[in-house]
């Protein structure tokens, strides 16, 4: 991780404070905190639900003052740390008490935690002058850091006895409290969102696997999603939310890649699919914008997960039915516009020397040695089971493709089956198709298929490219693999990306590709049946 800056400093300080070895408190502080906290829990819970606690709070702040808690910043943060630890201890004690019903246990736990959360929320709201946002935000970051620090500490010491409950409740309820419709809170809302996103990033599943289910609940909480994706203007919350999803995908990747899912993995995976479905339905533009970043971290075999992302398209767009006979993709006005890609693909092509050689090859179509060395540039020897740099492959394909589109445009043409051919760009693609081994070619073709989405210039260009590679292939193995990549993305349940369907339908319908005369189509009776059923669904059926 980078060195933290900005608001994260306070969060990290909070974490460090809890995790520092031999952290000693001034004598008597533990007792004072314990006394005050229990006092507050009593006051809070003697109030009828949902009533205003301002008066009680003012009296309580006076009491805190009397006990000298509010004297220094250091004492305040110590108070929060101790309070968090006391609350968590109370929760663990309640959970081991088997003499009462679980409903009663929960009620007791919620009463303790909600009171603590209310205290934090009130202190944040009333710290500093009414219009001094800095003090409030600073305090919030500190508290979130402290709770996160307590969580990590607890997680690492209790290991399999760790419970997500207290932390999940503190974070959820604090978030809800700080998102109530109040003017003071409205002014700091973006800071609140930022603070929670940073905290959740610090607590990502890779760092606290025992917290992963609660973490996903927090990330997918309807108020959290709504605030960060819908109500924050100018999509300012989108990059932060994308980061959290990337954290989730990265965590899942090693477990999903082996395709043998244990129950705990299946549970988290199902939850992830649900979140993606919600996003596809409510925020398709978000998935469109970050599709590249997401596909980079999702393992190649997670076909449905990737299809959910690739099927997203802007809500104001109407997609022509891919099954329309004689659909002329070239005539769609949308295909002249490039999609928004929020990743800097160009800087992902490393090392710098390779990037330099690539650019000069694209310009001069020479030297030929660039092509012969391509394969070794993409290969990696380290790590078991991984022989290629997948990130570099993805970046290279998208970079060369977008360069090709601008190159064709600069000559006054539009990309189509003939204008894409015989260029430095196509040299690279054809070389990769021929020169790579099965694994490399699989990754290469996947990188292309990841661009087959809603009608846009990339979809159109890469659809033509894939069909061209099929037509010009010098061995049947390449054609078989192209078919495989397309087919395996279509035999899974819906949704299917529009560009993917278009490409596959073209391949099996257009006689120039002689699709049905290939041996691999008839290599086994079940494969043959499969093709027939796909063909039937592609050609006839309209109501899929």
């Amino acid at each position, binding site marked *: 991780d980078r060195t933290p800056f900005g608001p994260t400093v306070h969060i990290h300080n909070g974490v460090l404070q809890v995790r520092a070895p031999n952290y000693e408190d001034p004598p008597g502080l533990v007792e004072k905190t314990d006394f005050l906290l229990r006092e507050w829990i009593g006051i809070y819970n003697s109030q009828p*639900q*949902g009533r205003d606690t301002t008066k009680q709070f003012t009296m309580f702040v006076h009491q805190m003052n009397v006990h000298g808690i509010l004297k220094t910043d250091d004492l305040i943060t110590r108070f929060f740390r101790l309070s968090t630890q006391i609350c968590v201890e109370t929760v663990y004690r309640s959970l081991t008490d088997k003499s009462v019903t679980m*409903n009663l246990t*929960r*009620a007791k736990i*919620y*009463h303790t935690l*909600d009171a603590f959360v209310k205290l934090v929320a009130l202190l944040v709201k009333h710290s500093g002058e009414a219009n001094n946002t800095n003090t409030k935000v600073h305090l919030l970051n500190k508290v979130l850091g402290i709770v996160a620090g307590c969580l990590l500490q607890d*997680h690492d010491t209790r*290991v*399999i*006895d*760790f*419970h*997500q*409950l207290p932390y*999940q*409740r503190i974070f*959820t*309820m604090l978030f*809800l409290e700080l998102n109530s419709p109040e003017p003071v809170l409205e002014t700091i809302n973006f800071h609140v969102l930022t603070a929670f996103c940073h905290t959740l990033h610090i607590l990502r*599943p*890779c760092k*606290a*696997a*025992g*917290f*992963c*289910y*609660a973490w996903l*609940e*927090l990330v997918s*909480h309807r108020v959290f999603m709504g605030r960060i994706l819908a109500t924050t203007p100018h999509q300012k919350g989108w990059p932060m939310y994308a980061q959290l999803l990337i954290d989730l995908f990265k*965590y899942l990747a*090693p*477990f999903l*890649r*082996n*395709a*043998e*899912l*244990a*129950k*705990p*993995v299946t*549970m*988290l995976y199902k939850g992830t699919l649900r979140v993606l479905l919600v996003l596809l339905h409510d925020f398709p533009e978000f998935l469109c914008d970050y599709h590249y970043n997401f596909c980079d971290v999702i393992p*190649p*075999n997670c076909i449905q997960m990737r299809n959910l992302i690739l099927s997203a398209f802007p809500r104001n767009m109407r997609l022509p039915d891919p099954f329309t006979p004689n659909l002329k993709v070239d005539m769609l006005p949308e295909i002249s516009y490039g999609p928004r890609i929020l990743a800097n693909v160009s800087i992902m092509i490393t090392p710098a020397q390779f990037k330099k050689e690539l650019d000069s090859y694209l310009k001069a179509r020479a030297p030929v040695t660039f092509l012969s060395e391509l394969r070794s540039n993409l290969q990696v020897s380290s790590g*078991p*089971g*991984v022989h290629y740099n997948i990130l570099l492959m993805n970046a290279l394909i998208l970079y060369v493709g977008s360069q090709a589109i601008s190159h064709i445009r600069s000559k006054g043409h539009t990309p189509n089956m003939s204008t894409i051919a015989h260029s430095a760009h196509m040299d690279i693609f054809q070389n990769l198709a021929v020169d790579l081994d099965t*694994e490399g070619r*699989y990754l290469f073709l996947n990188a292309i298929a990841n661009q087959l989405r809603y009608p846009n210039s990339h979809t159109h260009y890469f659809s033509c490219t894939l069909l061209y590679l099929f037509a010009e292939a010098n061995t049947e193995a390449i054609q078989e693999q192209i078919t495989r990549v397309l087919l*395996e993305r279509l035999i899974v349940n819906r949704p299917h990306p529009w560009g993917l369907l278009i490409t596959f339908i073209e391949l099996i319908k257009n006689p120039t590709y002689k699709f049905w005369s290939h041996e691999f189509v008839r290599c086994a009776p079940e494969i043959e049946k499969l093709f027939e059923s796909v063909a039937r669904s592609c050609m006839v059926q309209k109501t899929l």
Partner: protein
Amino acid sequence: GVAPLGAVPLQKEHQSQFQYMESAFYHMPHPSDSERIRPYVQRTPYPTQTYYIQAPLPLSDTLEFYQRLATETLFFVFYYMEGTKAQYLAAKALKKQSWRFHTKYMMWFQRHEEPKVINEEYEQGTYIYFDYEKWGQRKKEGFTFEYKYLEDRDLN
């Protein structure tokens, strides 16, 4: 399941992550963990037979739906589901049926007849009200409804 790139044994750190995840799996978050406290009607998930209705009827969170509910149901929702959207909808539906909330007695009143007296401060007459302690409707003759106790916020 397919692993086109071949299976890769889990690294040590992933094995340890799995252990943490597995133990967390045995105490999953409960739906109520991320909700405000429900003092009366708690969530008690139970695996019911699939031939029973599993999800509430569509549009059952609309005012139109609440207006079709029995008055007693509305009173139940009002008193036992405090601070929820359901309570808000129940109050709205009750108001539409000319029930008025008395903020001192915390009970709902409805005119039984035209009030005998109406002035700036109060009205007086015979009312039907819902007694939440006895849980039933009662009639009160010669009752004075002071307007300062009338809950008259616009529910939007």
